């Protein structure tokens, strides 16, 4: 009787211990809190091709960017198929906080000086907090610093300013990311009476991630141009390669300008005429 009794106790003790041993796994999962999983790297870079993406530098991150657009292929052998001509754009981007990025830039075309601010409003997330897309706001200003032949215009600084406002709405779905960019451009002075001071545009861009290093990007802006038939909607395709702190993009586009105020409002070449040009973007993050 006594033996049986002790055996029963031992049995229960082992039972409890074996149960506790298995339970640690379950307890571990139970006590590991669900976190809010914010989408990262919706795009490889802070630009899709010409336009801004929802990506930006984290706090204290610095991005030095060089963009280059050549002339059109159909300029022929004499212009080395466009490669003799070029528009360069240098930009320094800096993350003041994880949500606020500022940048200054200089484009050779029209000797343009640019400055902008990008603000992250919402981040796409899953887990503890669910939100379907990332939303950022971009505001930028640019000044043409080239000398005009008209002296009156030369002295009128205000007339040299353009402003661009963009809402960037992006969603990452595994390897595919898409972005809509409703855009408003205001130009203080335009070339002719028929040109519009205010332009509305809708950008649609995306990328497909092939491997962790390679991606392809596409970007199109539908623009409500003036009645003048010399303006076209910009359409661009790019192959992106990321390694360490660098992103390289080689691209095909119909727009010579690179800054938002002018590639949206001032693209004067068309894919249908074969006015394509080669370009590249290089981003180096410090």
């Amino acid at each position, binding site marked *: 009787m006594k033996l049986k009794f002790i055996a029963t*106790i031992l049995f229960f003790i082992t039972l409890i*211990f074996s149960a506790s*041993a298995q339970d*640690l796994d379950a307890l*571990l999962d139970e006590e590991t809190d669900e*976190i809010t999983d914010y989408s990262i790297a919706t795009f490889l870079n802070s630009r899709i091709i010409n336009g801004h993406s929802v990506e930006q*530098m984290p*706090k204290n991150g610095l991005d030095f960017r060089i963009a280059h657009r050549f002339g059109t292929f159909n300029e022929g052998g004499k212009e080395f198929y466009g490669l003799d001509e070029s528009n360069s754009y240098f930009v320094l981007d800096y993350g003041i906080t994880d949500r606020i990025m500022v940048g200054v830039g200089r484009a050779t075309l029209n000797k343009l000086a640019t400055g902008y601010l990008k603000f992250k409003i919402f981040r796409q997330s899953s887990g503890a907090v669910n939100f379907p897309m990332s939303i950022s706001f971009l505001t930028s200003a640019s000044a043409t610093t080239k000398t005009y032949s008209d002296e009156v215009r030369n002295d009128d600084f205000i007339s040299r300013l353009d402003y661009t406002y963009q809402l960037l709405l992006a969603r990452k779905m595994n390897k595919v990311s898409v972005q809509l960019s409703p855009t408003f451009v205001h130009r203080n002075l335009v070339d002719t009476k028929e040109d519009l001071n205010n332009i509305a545009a809708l950008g649609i861009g995306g990328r497909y991630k092939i491997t962790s290093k390679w991606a392809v990007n596409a970007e199109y802006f539908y623009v409500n141009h003036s009645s003048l038939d010399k303006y076209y909607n910009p359409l661009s395709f790019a192959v992106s390669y990321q*390694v360490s*702190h660098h992103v390289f993009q080689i691209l095909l586009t119909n727009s010579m300008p690179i800054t938002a105020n002018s590639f949206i409002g001032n693209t004067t070449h068309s894919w249908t005429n074969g006015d394509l040009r080669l370009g590249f973007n290089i981003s180096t993050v410090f």
Partner: protein
Amino acid sequence: MKKITILVLLLSSTIFCFSQNLFFTKTGHAYFMSHTDAIDIDGNNNQVTSFFNKENGEVVFQLLIKSFKFTLATAEEHFNETYMESDKFPKAKFKGNVMNMNEIDFNTDGSYKAKVKGRLTIHGATNEIEQEGIVTIKDGEISASSKFKVNIADYKIKVPKMVKERVAQTVDIEVDFNYELYK
């Protein structure tokens, strides 16, 4: 009747004893450092969950890869997407035992060397490891820490050729836990 009373008492004391022996934390800390001549990449995770059973020496911890915070601005994306593939392998986990429990006196303040043996899972790959840690008892509170090295090839973490000299083959890891009684 008396016997049943004793049985119940004994059983309940075992259960009670068990609950007095299980310690845990949700705010454990893990740190890693990848040191190369080219660049140092390090990150901290302050949401490590760990359990420690004082009775049988069982110790487990688990963390979410995405909870790491980085000193270097761009490291998070590369760490999660390229190296750790944290969407595919969201957790890292250790499950093992303190082998020299008899050398640790939980009733006397002091620092004790602990020999820990178990299975470490990172990036979906599991390896048997044997490391030393330190168990510290102070005013009845238990804390534990360990520093060890992990060979990233053992855990099938691939590094692209072009950045080979920027990512260490052997990564230094530190973990520390301040335990409280699990109720």
